[in-house]
């Protein structure tokens, strides 16, 4: 039963791709050919690239999401994360260049040119067979009406014309067989359709290899950093709080022995034990701040950066347009990146004023740290900046530096937030 249902829904999916989506696909076909041919002739087609890219992306995303939901075949998005383009003609030009140089745009284009033939063939055959099968039924039922009006045609190999009444129910029999055949092959055809979609809509093997290399590297980096952090924490605990507690225990022990003989000395030792516990607390507090600052846990990135700014010896203005909480690991990475950037400013820049700007745009968390210091920072030499870069790379984030001699220095960090992680995509797949 469920098997039949699955087959029938595969037929319906084919109907969707043919009857509903073919026209929008052809619109994409026209838009693409128009912009490409106009680029070749008078260059005006360049202007059409961004809207065409957006439209093709919409079509491709629709195909990706339907195919995932209906066929269970996952087609990852190959697009590069879009930077902020800015307004005006310059921004539009950047938009054109971004899409024009994105291989994924051209692969979308190839898809929209080929799919109306290949995709349609795969999707439409089952529904076509079913509809033609139904047509056979109609011919049988309406046989006399048809033939009386001079109908003279072939239904498969049955000649339908007046005088062939003996084969009146043959079209029905053939039609039922044909429709059954259409229904039977529908899942296989639609699966082929989905796999065909994946050919051009998924990232290329080269992209995947590059991604794999990047992930391997950043994972190794992340593990190294994590191991180093754990070693540091272990050392801090060992030399700090643990040692204090040992001292405290010794003081308390000594005090209890002196309690009767020399109450005054005992009192002094007790006070020392108390001070040891206070110092142990201070050290633990500093340690916790280095692991996960409490304000970050309480309030999230924006308030944590505000608190950081308040505690800094620098004069820092914080401007933030970030609503709600981000994923905890992302918040932490962004926080420590900002913290590290501020440390750098304090160490090297000789700045008096710092501006931090945080905003969310197009699925990216963008943070800029600007200072009015002496400039001349070099990404290749500064270990601090390199550390931030590695921290961000784990999250596919990037760091850009602009620091001419004489300043100002601008550190720009971008972190993708609308993550395409399996966590989010699987939740939509169940819908």
């Amino acid at each position, binding site marked *: 039963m469920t098997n039949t249902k699955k087959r029938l829904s595969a037929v319906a999916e084919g109907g969707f791709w043919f009857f509903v989506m073919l026209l929008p696909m052809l619109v994409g076909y026209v838009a693409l050919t128009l912009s490409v041919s106009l680029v070749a002739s008078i260059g005006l087609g360049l202007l059409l690239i961004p809207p065409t890219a957006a439209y093709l992306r919409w079509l491709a995303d629709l195909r990706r999401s339907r195919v995932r939901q209906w066929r269970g075949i996952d087609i990852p998005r190959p697009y590069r994360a879009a930077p902020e383009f800015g307004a005006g003609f310059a921004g539009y030009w950047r938009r054109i260049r971004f899409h024009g140089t994105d291989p994924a745009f051209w692969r979308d284009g190839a898809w929209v040119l080929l799919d109306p033939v290949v995709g349609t063939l795969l999707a439409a055959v089952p529904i076509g067979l079913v509809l033609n099968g139904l047509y056979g039924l109609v011919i049988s039922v309406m046989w006399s009406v048809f033939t009386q009006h001079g109908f003279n045609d072939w239904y498969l190999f049955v000649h339908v014309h007046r005088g062939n009444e003996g084969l009146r129910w043959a079209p029905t029999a053939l039609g039922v067989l044909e429709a059954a055949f259409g229904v039977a092959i529908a899942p296989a055809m639609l699966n082929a359709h989905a796999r065909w979609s994946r050919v051009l809509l998924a990232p290329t093997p080269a992209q995947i290899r590059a991604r794999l290399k990047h992930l391997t590297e950043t994972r190794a980096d992340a593990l190294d950093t994590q191991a180093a952090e754990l070693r540091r924490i272990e050392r801090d605990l060992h030399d700090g709080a643990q040692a204090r507690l040992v001292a405290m225990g010794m003081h308390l022990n000594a005090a209890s022995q002196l309690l009767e003989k020399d109450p005054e000395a005992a009192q002094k030792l007790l006070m020392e034990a108390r001070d040891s516990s206070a110092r142990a607390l201070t050290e633990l507090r500093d340690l*916790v701040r280095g692991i996960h600052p409490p304000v970050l846990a309480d309030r999230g990135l924006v308030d944590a950066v505000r608190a950081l700014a308040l505690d800094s010896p620098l004069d820092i203005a914080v401007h933030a347009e970030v609503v709600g909480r981000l994923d905890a690991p992302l918040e932490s990475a962004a926080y420590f990146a900002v913290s590290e950037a501020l440390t750098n400013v304090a160490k090297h820049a000789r700045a008096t004023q710092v501006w931090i700007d945080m905003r969310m745009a197009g699925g990216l968390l963008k943070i800029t740290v600007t200072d009015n210091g002496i400039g001349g920072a070099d990404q290749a030499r500064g270990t601090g900046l390199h550390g931030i870069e590695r921290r961000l790379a784990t999250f596919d984030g990037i760091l850009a530096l602009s620091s001419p001699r004489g300043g100002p220095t601008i550190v720009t960090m971008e972190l993708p937030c609308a993550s395409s992680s399996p966590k989010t995509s699987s939740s939509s797949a169940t819908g």
Partner: protein
Amino acid sequence: MRVVLAEDLFLLRDGMIRLLEAYGFQIAAAVGDGPALVEALVTERPDVAVVDVRMPPTFTDEGLKAVLEARQVVPGLPVLVLSQYVEQLYARELLADGAGAIGYLLKDRVFDSDSFVDAVRRVAAGGTVMDPEVIAKLLARGARKEPLGELTDREREVLALMAEGRSNAAIAERLVVTERAIAKHTSNIFMKLGLPESGDDNRRVLAVLAFLKA
């Protein structure tokens, strides 16, 4: 004096109750989470509340939020906030209404029970008690904005001690000068910060607020 105590860890709550009762406070209510605290503050209207920042249900800044919420219903309700760590950001939020009667201390200050109880009393009397660690960070940052930049080093020192909640007499003792000299410094501070003539307590609160916001 009636106290509402908010602390979710049983051991600490028990210890605090004993400590406060030993100093003659009466525990009106002892609660362990944010919503219960708001309720207790609004219904009990204690002379002072001693509140831990991190509590259930969220285990974030529950206590702080509860205090701010309760003080909207009962303006100026005296509250001493305790925390494992102190943040200038939270200090500002607590003082933002300018009503004073706010304390903000590290939890380990409880170890020194005399000065802790003294802090509770000063908050109950409408004073402002900031943790020395908050003050130290403020001083480390230096005065970078008007009008605090106009203060002399000595006046900033006095302001810092004022922010810790100390009286003129205590400040004089600490800096080894006469109380009259301190009174002169404080009136200079009020003048330079442009604080209007009003009760001394209120001006002290406003001065601390200006200090935090600089």
